[in-house]
Structure formats: C-alpha cells, structure tokens
C-alpha cells in the first residue's frame, strides 16, 4: 500500500496538523502517521470519521485509481 498523499494534502488544506486530525477523530497521532504513510489500513468507520473531519468523501481520500483501469 502506497502513501496516502490525498489525505495529507486534504489535511494540510484545512490547516490541520496530524495531532489536530487525530484529536478530531479520536485516535493517536501515530495512527494518522501510519495511515498517511500507508503502513496501516484503517477501518471504514475511521475512514468515515476522517472524511467528516476534513469535509471530504471516501472517494476523495481513500479511493485508489488503478493505472490498469482505462
């Protein structure tokens, strides 16, 4: 799993730090770091909480476009 740059960009766009986002969704900062690094695959529940905190949809942040899909 690659880095989730979309999440990082969305977080930066609303001016939230990793700690700020972590507090907003009730997890540790290390969990946000792990998600952004692609080291941890969050549950749908946490994905939804993150999307709500950032004002985005699941597709915006977590849908991966595959190169082989035309």
């Amino acid at each position, binding site marked *: 799993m690659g880095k989730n740059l979309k999440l990082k960009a969305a977080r930066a766009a609303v001016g939230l730090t990793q700690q700020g986002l972590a507090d907003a969704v009730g*997890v540790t900062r*290390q969990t946000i*770091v*792990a998600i*952004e690094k692609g080291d941890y695959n*969050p549950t749908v529940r946490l994905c939804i909480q993150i999307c709500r905190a950032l004002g985005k949809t699941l597709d915006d942040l977590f849908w991966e476009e595959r190169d082989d899909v035309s």
Partner: protein
Amino acid sequence: MFRKCRNDFDERQLLQRGNVFKHGIILFFLLVAANAFLKEEGVTWAEGMWENLLIIWAVLGLCLGEFAVKEIFPIGGGMTVIYLVEGLCGLFLSAMCLTEVITGREAMLIGPHTLSRTGAQMISGGIMVLLLLVFLGKKVYNHRKGDTEDEA
C-alpha cells in the same frame, strides 16, 4: 482504581496489542514444548523452579519489549514507572548475582548444562535491564527523530 486502568486504545493500537499477545503465546508454547522435550531427554537446564520462571520471564520480556517499541501502554503513563522500577530492580539483582559469582560464593552453573539459581536470577535481572534499555532507547529515538508533526 479499575477505571484508571482502563485505556482508550484506537483501532490500530488494539490490533498491535493483539499481535503482541499473539507473539507472546506463540513463544510461550514453543518454550514449553522445548522444555518438555529437554525434560524427556533428561536435560535440566536450570535449577528447580527457575526453568519455569525463566520461560515466564522470556514471554513477559517479549510482550513488554514489544509494548515499549510500539508504544502501547496498557495503563498509560503508569507504564513509565513500571519500566523504571522493574529496570532498576533488574540492575540491582544482576549486580548482586554478579558480585556473588565474582567473589566465588556462588557459581553460574551447577552442572554441565544446568544454570544455578544465581545464574537464572542474573538472566532474569538481565531481561529486566534490557526492557528498561529498550524503553529508554525508544524515548531517545522519538526525541532525536523529533516526535512532532508531519513525519509521513
């Protein structure tokens, strides 16, 4: 009191904690099986109850070590005190046993393959000191890495 012991792990931490316990149980089964095999072969590798105690210590050491590395602390900040006290006790125990061995009052081995009580205690103390070092090492690592923002 019990309320203080409750934790607020997030989903990633719960997953990691489960993995730590899994590793602990696997190591425990392996060590118990190895110990049973050695017993069957007539090998006693430590004096008296110390075979069993060292197995328990090895499993506890693995779990506590992984907790320290992954920063999953079941009772939050209280774990710092536990690591410090346990490490200092281990240091004292190791030093005491080492002194006894050096002065010749006790031996490390009581047979060709059998650890004496003192030797087993020294190993237990060593595990305790190692855990403290892992805990402190992780703290230093976090500090040097600058455990702040945007490390991704």
